[in-house]
């Protein structure tokens, strides 16, 4: 039945009858449709695409991964998320990565261009390899991570190829990119430049279907002139908390601070503390974790005798792996932790030191 403007007319009584659950003692309507008739056009399971395939891409977006420790970092995944924002359905995302990198399909790589790095610190050689890839693929955009080495590489490529660079992108769409400028008081909004470097933790990773990660021919690494360089790792006990990778923090459940210091040294961790201990003068103020102390960017956090006040948990929201030692089963830190031990902190620390020295 149609109205004069040929729009389908609703029949509320028929709709209600369809939702009626039969056999119920009183009126029951199943609005979720779990027991009623199936929806009008069910999609057969086989028709759902299980993989993103871009057979003939209209254009390419090159993402130069910043693989610092041999595996894909969170920043690399965000870089691929940004590349998919620019590529959309029509374009394909090409990653430039060292060979043998795992997990590129789910991270969102449509094509993979491998380039074996030369030994040593050779930023100009790496920039030349990226320039070779740009010359052979002619990508519409090239993305870099705005990290220590990634930001350096982006600027080397921009300077040697005379490309426009939008550095430190904080928001991105298919036709705009936003970056801070003027000492962070203003932001620049413009069409995405040829070269973009993506600030960390600003653009989410790729969350779509797995991509095919087709291998492209390897890009030769041009012989550069590497600098003579040696890397010296930082002393974890002296690191600022915001830079530390592995933090062991003490709370009010701790009484033996000498043993805590020995444990932190034995684990090779950076010491932290809760507000209670810093207020009492038992730990230095620059070691305080939480909303009024430092917000961590660590990989792993061990909370010894910390119950987990909301202000303390605010400091560890970004930490993926938390281990808690606490006597209270119902402490908030125990609920937050991936592994929690309900025991006295001193006993566990003594046992840890004994096993580490064994």
């Amino acid at each position, binding site marked *: 039945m149609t109205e004069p403007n040929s729009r389908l007319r609703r029949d509320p009584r028929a709709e209600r009858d369809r939702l009626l659950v039969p056999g119920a003692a009183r009126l029951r309507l199943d609005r979720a449709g779990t027991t009623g008739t199936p929806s009008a056009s069910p999609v057969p399971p086989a028709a759902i695409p299980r993989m993103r395939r871009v057979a003939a891409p209209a254009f390419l977006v090159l993402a130069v991964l910043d693989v610092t420790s041999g595996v894909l970092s969170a920043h690399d995944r965000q870089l691929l998320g940004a590349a998919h924002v620019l590529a959309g359905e029509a374009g394909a995302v090409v990653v430039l990565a060292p060979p043998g990198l795992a997990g590129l399909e789910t991270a969102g790589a449509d094509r993979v261009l491998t380039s074996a790095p030369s030994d040593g610190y050779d930023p100009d050689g790496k920039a030349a390899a990226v320039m070779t890839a740009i010359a052979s693929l002619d990508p519409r955009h090239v993305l870099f991570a705005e990290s*220590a080495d990634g930001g*350096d590489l982006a600027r080397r490529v921009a300077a040697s190829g005379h490309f426009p660079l939008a550095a430190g992108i904080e928001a991105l769409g298919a036709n705009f990119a936003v970056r801070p400028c003027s000492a962070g008081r203003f932001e620049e909004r413009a069409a995405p430049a040829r070269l973009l470097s993506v600030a960390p933790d600003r653009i989410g990773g790729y969350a779509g279907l797995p991509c095919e990660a087709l291998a492209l021919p390897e890009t030769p690494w041009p012989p550069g002139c590497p*600098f003579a360089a040696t890397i010296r790792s930082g002393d974890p006990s002296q690191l600022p908390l915001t830079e530390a*990778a592995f933090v062991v923090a003490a709370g009010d459940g701790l009484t033996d601070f000498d043993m805590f210091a020995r444990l932190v040294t034995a684990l090779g961790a950076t010491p932290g503390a809760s507000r209670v201990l810093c207020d009492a003068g038992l730990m230095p103020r620059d070691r305080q974790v939480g909303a009024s102390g430092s917000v961590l960017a660590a*990989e792993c956090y061990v909370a010894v005798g910390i119950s987990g006040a909301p202000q303390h948990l605010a400091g560890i929201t970004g930490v993926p*792996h938390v281990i808690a030692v606490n006597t209270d089963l119902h402490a908030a830190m125990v609920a937050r932790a991936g*592994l929690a*031990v309900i025991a006295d902190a001193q006993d566990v620390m003594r046992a840890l030191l004994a096993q580490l020295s064994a």
Partner: protein
Amino acid sequence: MRATVLLSAGRHPVSGRASPVAVEMQAIRLAIDLGATPSGLHAGEAASAAQDALGHGLSRLVLLEGATDDPLPALLDHLRRLPPDLLLAGRRGQGGSDSGLLPYQLAHGLGWPIVADVVRLTRSGGKLIAEQALPRGARRVVTLSLPCIVTVHPAALPALPFRLAGLQGEVRSVPVAPTPATSQPELRPYRMRPKVVERSAGGGSVLVGVSAEQAASAILSELRRLKMLAG
């Protein structure tokens, strides 16, 4: 050794007033600690921030006046005529485009090596040894041949304190040909956007009533799984 520090038209991040950029003042200190008497180089109009840098240890200041929009040609021309042994710059400017691209463009134009994020400089023979800041407190020690360009990281030693008498240092103005105006991008007040945080929800395993030894071995095996321990 002739060292030149590039000075930008800095703005204070909070007040927006002209003020020297902290990393550039730290660059002056790195050059002084190296035994050089650094001179400053600024291209562009707003020079009050650059003049304040005289108080932080610069011996003299060269202003390339007239290069308003693109300082690169004027700087390249000046540096080719009077090349220093070492050119220092902040890792990012503060007050303009803040892209940190200019030192790289100068390095490309002059054909000099460039090393970024330097926190310490020493000399060994005719070479320069630069300590570069990496994430997680690590340092990369790079040996460079002169002349070269280094950009300075905020983790370098703090700037020398301000001396009012320093402001009486020599200032030399060099008029340069104005560069054509480039199109300005759309500027808006900065809006802080929330950071992407991949939360872990917790809800992991809880060990209740285990001995301290069992708890310790569980913690150590978890730390080994996360590759947090050396052994």
